[in-house]
């Protein structure tokens, strides 16, 4: 593995590489590659056909170019679409059979997988490049009828559920990167919560990109059946490399009648070095459908990593009285770029949505909130409240707000507020006078600025996220 040219960046503590022997798909994007992935995953024919359908669609679709962060052309033929540790070829039956190097990697990341050490109250699916390494707490969950497993396993064991819901929220033809994902997705998590079940613990997937020149195409599908509840967490890191790596995930959520899904992300992919070399292109499609009445989907994201982040976790509020929420913190420093936000599509009656977005831009970074609130003609008595606040540190960075607001009936109300300002000098002075230095003061004030979002995170994540907020901005105030 070539990693001589790494610019060691002390601030990014997850930047190490695991030396491990890999099996890779042939380089490049072709029918052959797709067949390779499908075969190695032992997929049924319907799945391969689905992938090929997406691939055919991809041939006639174009990369979108309306987003603010522009990026150099990606050479799709120069990427690996599948990379997995050799030891994972024959799926280990238990954790004892998993390569200790992999276990060690997750230990280093603070995600112990061992039975004795595993995190209490959180079931983890650990995805390493293109495969799921291990899933903890499986037995406990199975007792309640909850399915939590790698999606590749679900395709084999629960084909009816996968067939019914995969692509039902993000159609194959949605847009370039969603189509690409549909053709070549490798692994990710599958969750099914049966009716009237409250998932007893947090479910979580930890994504790790390790191999170089490899794209990660995760696919996650979460179905909350009638009257159920689940809270799902997602974390991500990658080694420091001077190449840009592509992460193009599709995440679909489906909430049926009276069900609730809470989806939290702490995204800390490698952001590139101080000069903007390297880093992950995080082009992600996340969408949830509130299909049933009284259902609820809530997205919370803390986006601090990636060279370019480009994602709009959205809610389609189909069921009457359904609720969509989006809480976001996006921090960009150095040369990072983020274009993120949400879409709230109100179709059912009495639907409600809430958007709280906090953007912080420092260094030479660019941070855009882009969002759509669309209240349809038939979505009577619906409501949206949006608040977008941006904080700028220094005058080499940019903060932008691009909301699209559509109200198509007179019984619905939309409120949108946005502010942009710099970090308040008086607040800094006050903190300094109480003995805090500049960086501590900034971290404290920014955490306060983000509080409305941070408090949405599950406890275990909130503490980590708060630290991350401080670390991400280190060196940003002169």
């Amino acid at each position: 593995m070539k990693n001589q040219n790494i610019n060691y960046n002390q601030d990014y503590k997850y930047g190490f590489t695991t030396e491990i022997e890999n099996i890779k798909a042939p380089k490049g994007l072709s029918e052959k590659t797709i067949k390779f992935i499908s075969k190695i995953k032992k997929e049924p024919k319907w799945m391969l056909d689905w992938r090929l359908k997406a691939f055919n669609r991809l041939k006639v679709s174009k990369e979108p170019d309306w987003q603010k962060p522009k990026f150099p052309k990606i050479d799709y033929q120069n990427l690996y679409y599948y990379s997995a540790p050799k030891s994972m070829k024959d799926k280990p039956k238990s954790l004892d059979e998993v390569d200790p190097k992999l276990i060690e990697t997750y230990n280093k990341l603070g995600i112990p997988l061992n039975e004795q050490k595993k995190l209490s109250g959180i079931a983890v699916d650990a995805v390493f490049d293109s495969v799921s390494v291990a899933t903890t707490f499986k037995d406990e969950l199975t007792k309640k009828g909850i399915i939590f497993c790698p999606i590749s396993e679900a395709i084999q064991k629960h084909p009816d559920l996968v067939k019914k819901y995969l692509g039902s929220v993000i159609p194959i033809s949605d847009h370039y990167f969603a189509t690409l994902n549909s053709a070549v997705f490798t692994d990710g998590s599958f969750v099914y919560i049966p009716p009237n079940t409250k998932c007893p613990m947090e479910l979580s997937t930890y994504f790790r990109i390790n191999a170089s020149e490899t794209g990660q195409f995760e696919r996650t599908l979460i179905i909350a059946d009638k009257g159920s509840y689940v809270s799902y967490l997602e974390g991500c890191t990658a080694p420091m490399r001077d190449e840009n790596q592509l992460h193009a995930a599709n995440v679909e959520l489906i909430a049926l009648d009276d069900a609730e899904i809470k989806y939290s992300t702490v995204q800390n992919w490698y952001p590139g070095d101080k000069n903007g070399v390297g880093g992950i292109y995080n082009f992600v499609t996340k969408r949830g459908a509130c299909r049933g009445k009284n259902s609820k989907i809530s997205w919370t994201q803390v986006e601090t990593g990636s060279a370019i982040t480009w994602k709009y976790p959205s809610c389609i509020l189909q069921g009457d009285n359904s609720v969509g929420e989006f809480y976001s913190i996006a921090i960009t420093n150095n040369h990072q770029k983020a274009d993120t936000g949400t879409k709230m599509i109100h179709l059912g009656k009495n639907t409600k949505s809430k958007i709280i977005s906090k953007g912080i831009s420092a260094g030479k970074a660019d941070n855009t909130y882009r969002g759509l609130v669309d209240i349809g003609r038939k979505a009577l008595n619906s409501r949206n409240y949006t608040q977008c606040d941006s904080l700028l540190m220094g005058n080499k960075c940019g903060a932008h707000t691009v909301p699209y607001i559509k109200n198509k009936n007179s019984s619905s109300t939309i409120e949108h507020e946005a502010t942009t300002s710099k970090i308040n000098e008086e607040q800094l002075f006050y903190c300094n006078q109480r003995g805090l230095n500049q960086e501590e003061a900034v971290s404290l004030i920014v955490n306060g600025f983000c509080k409305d979002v941070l408090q949405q995170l599950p406890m275990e994540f909130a503490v980590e996220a708060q630290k991350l907020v401080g670390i991400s901005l280190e060196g940003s105030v002169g």
Partner: protein
Amino acid sequence: MLNFKINSNAIEKIGNFNAKEKEFRLKNLDSFNKNGFPNKKSEDWKFSDLREIVSKNFKKLDLKVVKTDAQKIKFIQEFDHNYIIVTNGELTSSNFKFEEKNKIKVQNYLNNNFINKQENNPLINLNHALSDKGYFLEVEENYKLKKILVIYNLYTNNLNQNILNCKNKIKIGKNSELHILEYTINRSKKNFFNNIYENVVLEQSAIYKNICIYNEKSFGYFHKYSSNKLDTKSSSTFFIFPSGLKFNKLDLEFDLNGENSECNLQAASYLNHDDHQEIKTRINHFAPNCKSFQKVKNVLDSESKGIYQGKIFVKDIAQKTDAYQLSKAILLNDDSEFNSKPELEIYADDVKCSHGSSSGSIDEDSIFYLMSRGLNRQEAIKLLVEGFLSEITNEIKSNSIKNFIIGKLEEQLHEHKKN
């Protein structure tokens, strides 16, 4: 679907132009023909699909130069004013009896700026290609007009499926002040299209105030692009009451080029039937210590559609910018629609920028309160709508002008209800 390609001999029919101008016009005509009327695929026209609107309402668009005979108009009696009369876009009369001679210049406008800046608005292309009339108004340095100038924009009753392309320019010299009331009188009962390109230049410490109102409901389809350039310490204030047309898009751009310049824009409108109205503003903060303020209020009835797209851009050197924008809409009918896109693009950190946008139904508690005091529902709504819009009219300083505007708005509201 109306296929609206324009033959290049349309330019020759307007007049004989020198090579430079001819090239400029031809190039712009090419651009227009390439794109046609913009549709919703174009970001700036996302909410106003003009191609569809034109196809739906025009069987043809007549490029013929419209004959305009001098016509009598009813002058405003409520306050003293200077005036110019612009008939179908052409300057036909002017009177500055309240002012010193030689301080104000007014003449037919001839464009002499043929720099080929790539315009991405097809209607500007169209105007550059075919504009054949307009006025140029200039106030010399150090002169404050004593009375307001009323521009009577008269559209004659022989307009039918015509398209007009006019180009106007207003220049206000150093330390000078000009107040304008743009008053549109529309006599045509037929559909016609009016495409205006306007250039406003404010020199150092110049003050410009503009109030614009449409006298009666008409079948006009109007598009106006206005470029406003503000030098140091200059200030520009707009009060816009844009309702009364079938389609109206005002695309207003303000470049705050000099330090301490400021612009203030307020709009109030009441739309009904299938009126379609869009206000688009772009405020460019190019210099430090500038202020901008926009407040847009819409009341939407029947199947009307209101749009506000407002962008605030702050360049990195434009520190201490103070920018505020607010749009509010009341929807009175489930078939009405309000869309907005309040946008911020900010590259300087020591700024105060914020925007707000809200839309919703009229407050039921307020209706209930008024009805409990003896008003019927209709009256209660009318009172609340007037109150909602009066926040804008109340900002007009001159009492006589304010009362005149309020009167006109009431007529509009009343007339709309009747229809």
